[in-house]
């Protein structure tokens, strides 16, 4: 039983596959199993979202329950006994995965198509000997006319787990996409099936990140990303002061894709904005300025070292102050600065140059 108003936190033990596990009230079976290293497959589950229990992949046996129950949503109770491997569950998984395959684009090997974002369904299907079900050819519509530069939706790879729409609603509160239609016609849509640029979409790409099957992919990223040899480098996004962590996927010394670390690991909790996720072209852009430039007396910009550049700046500012007074200067810091950097900027303004003319571009 779930008790939504339950407030007291209690610790107790439950049994999973005969193994005693510590559990905390409010947790689900999947929460506990994951901590204990017991594998329960999931597709529609994302720790940032309310459990939907919709993909049915995580069904387990709970003692006392006639029906199989979704481990992602089923709340733990003291002394509960859960079974995650049995002939019944094996049969359930075999038929369910086979049914997913009959509703999914398959490759020559007969498995769900692998995309640049992988496909978790494909991995699950590798664990079974599938039933030869004929394809159902569900009439799911996509948005082939959508010209947005970043996000592509392929309805043939969609399992309708609704992670993307729930993410867009529950995490981003943007509500640009929705489940639409019903039954076999159910699909992911926008109002009026408009392109994402004509909706409230902020192109954060969180829908891509949460999609388990690669039905949503980056238009920019190489399609063979999974098989491509890439090196992942953790970095900090410098588009603003939040400090979101990025994983840069690098191939041949070029960034080919940016993702967030897994939810729960870093300050951004698996989320990125349009800049962090997609605005990485500047890294390799030919117009990118890679050293300081000083304009000479002839009006031409010439590369300089940081020492030279800082000295030239300081001399220039001090000369203005000497001639016109401190209040003739004004300082504006960038919204890309951190709080600490903003602090230093106002200190520079007030303590070094002696003016209160200090502002930050995101302050108004």
């Amino acid at each position, binding site marked *: 039983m779930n008790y939504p108003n339950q407030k007291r936190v209690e610790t107790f033990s439950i049994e999973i596959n005969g193994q005693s596990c510590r559990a905390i009230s409010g947790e689900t079976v999947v929460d506990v199993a994951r901590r204990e290293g017991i594998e329960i497959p999931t597709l529609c589950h994302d720790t940032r979202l309310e459990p939907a229990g919709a993909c049915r992949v995580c069904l387990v046996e709970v003692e006392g329950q006639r029906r199989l129950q979704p481990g992602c949503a089923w709340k733990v109770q003291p002394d509960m006994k859960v079974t995650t491997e049995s002939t019944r569950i094996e049969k*359930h998984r075999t038929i*369910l995965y086979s049914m997913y395959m009959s509703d999914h684009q398959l490759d020559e090997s007969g498995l769900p198509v692998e995309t640049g974002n992988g496909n978790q369904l494909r991995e699950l299907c590798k664990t079974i000997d599938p039933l030869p079900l004929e394809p159902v050819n569900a009439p799911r519509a996509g948005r082939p006319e959508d010209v947005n530069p970043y996000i592509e939706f392929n309805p043939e790879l969609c399992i309708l787990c609704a992670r993307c729409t729930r993410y867009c609603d529950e995490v981003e509160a943007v509500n640009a996409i929705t489940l639409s239609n019903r039954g076999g016609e159910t699909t992911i849509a926008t109002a009026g099936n408009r392109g994402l640029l004509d*909706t409230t979409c902020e192109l954060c790409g969180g829908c891509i990140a949460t999609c388990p099957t690669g039905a949503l992919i980056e238009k920019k990223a190489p399609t063979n990303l999974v098989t491509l040899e890439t090196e992942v480098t953790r970095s900090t996004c410098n588009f603003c002061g939040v400090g979101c962590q990025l994983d840069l996927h690098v191939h041949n010394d070029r960034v080919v894709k940016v993702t967030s670390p897994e939810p729960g690991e870093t300050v951004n909790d698996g989320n990125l904005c349009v800049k962090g996720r997609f605005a990485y072209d500047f890294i390799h852009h030919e117009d990118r300025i890679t050293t300081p430039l000083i304009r000479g007396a002839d009006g031409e910009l010439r590369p300089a070292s940081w020492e030279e550049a800082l000295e030239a700046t300081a001399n220039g500012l001090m000369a203005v102050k000497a001639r016109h007074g401190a209040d003739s200067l004004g300082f504006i810091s960038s919204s890309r600065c951190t709080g600490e950097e903003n602090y230093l900027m106002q200190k520079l303004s007030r303590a070094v140059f002696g003016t209160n003319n200090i502002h930050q571009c995101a302050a108004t």
Partner: protein
Amino acid sequence: MQKPNANREKIIELLEHAGGVTEDSVREVHEQTGIPEADIWGTGLFYTLLREPGQRIRLCDGLTCQMFGADSLAMELTEAGKAVERVSCLGQCDLAPASLDEAMELVTYAKHKTAISPPNELAMNLAGEVDLTYSALKKVKEMSPEDVIAALESSGLQGRGGAGFPAHFKWTSLRQQAETERYVICNADEAEPGTFKDRELILRQAHKMLEGLAIAAHVIEAKEIYIYIRGEYTNEYRAIERALEDSKAALQEFEFTIVKGHGAYICGEETALLESLEGKRGMPRLKPPYPTESGFRGKPSLIHNVETIACVPSIIHRGGDWFRSLGKTEAGSKLYCISGHVVAPGVYELPLGVSLDELVAAAGGYVGNPIAFSPGGASSGFLPIAERGLPLDYKHLADAGSMLGSAGVVVINDTVDMAKAAAWQLEFFERESCGQCAPCRIGTQYIRRQVDQFIQLGDPVTLAMTADVGWEMEEGSICGLGMVAAKPLESARKHFPDAFKTRD
């Protein structure tokens, strides 16, 4: 008081007023409510009465209407230049074939009228005089809530919507909730193929339903009562409006709201109904929590089928033991809908647990040579006519691998191809699946497809995997729809194996 999400609750009705889902209407509703456009779009397209604006005839393709020539009628109407949409069961099986005209008014093609039981001493007494005194409600106000629930318990009243859950448990649970904001909700979303009992009850004895609801609200200390009625029930909606008008004085302390459905069978499932009431796509919720703990607006809610709640006033008047004694094998009298190959299709109130033969005797006898019957709507599958002596109650039918469900009994004679009959029912479930969970969404498509192929090709190999898929639908689906959606095929194959042998 402004409720949280009050605007969300309005969007479906606003879309209806705007003429259905178009880009413009969605923008308009968005501007009126502030609800995101995508949410309005996705919600509107869930409901068949909203998703394709424009006027047309809606012609039923439920089992009985199909048995009585709905397909050829559709052809005739189309040839006459009419726009025709085939829709799921309209709840007019006794008058098959049936349709709604462009203004959503009922048009039926049967030569006879609905038959009902003559005036009697039973709980519903559909043909009896209308009682406007609301004396049971007055009596309840003199009783303790515990005594009312005790009467309900001794009556043995089980939920008449299909599940057969003892009614008093819900009332007791509601009274135990710490939350004091509580709701009474009447499920009048009657859409199970073969079922039209709530229709007759509302048309003839709506005050029994209203009084039952008021009694429930009094006992569980709720003020607001919602009646969710399927959008195709135009006459019945008006009947409830009229009844509320006529009982204003007696019911003044309660706040009644009638909410129209918009063409989604699944909204008869109680948690899907709650979603729909809240202005969302009618996708069933995971249970627990049950609506008695967390229902409408997340508050404790008592949800009853029309017939269940309409039994309450007679139980109050004449006692639980009296009601219990009306039954034959289980408690109470029961409204049985009967249609198909019988002489006088209609709604008959009989002791719960009569056999098919007894029911058909009340309905004037069989027409032709009966071979099969469906005892409780599409969800109950088919039984062979050999089971004609089986008590039509919750337990015996469940033991026989079927169910009483909503007691929508359809009799089928030897003029009908049982594979075809199964295919009609499967098509219904495929169309009405909400699409939320994979076993139901994919399974209903797969099974219907395979049976169609079998009918076309006559090769039983097309059905080789349907039993496995049906097993998963029952084991893995979220709600009852998916759990029973393979039943028509499974039961037809079990009881009528000859219909599924190789065909030339």
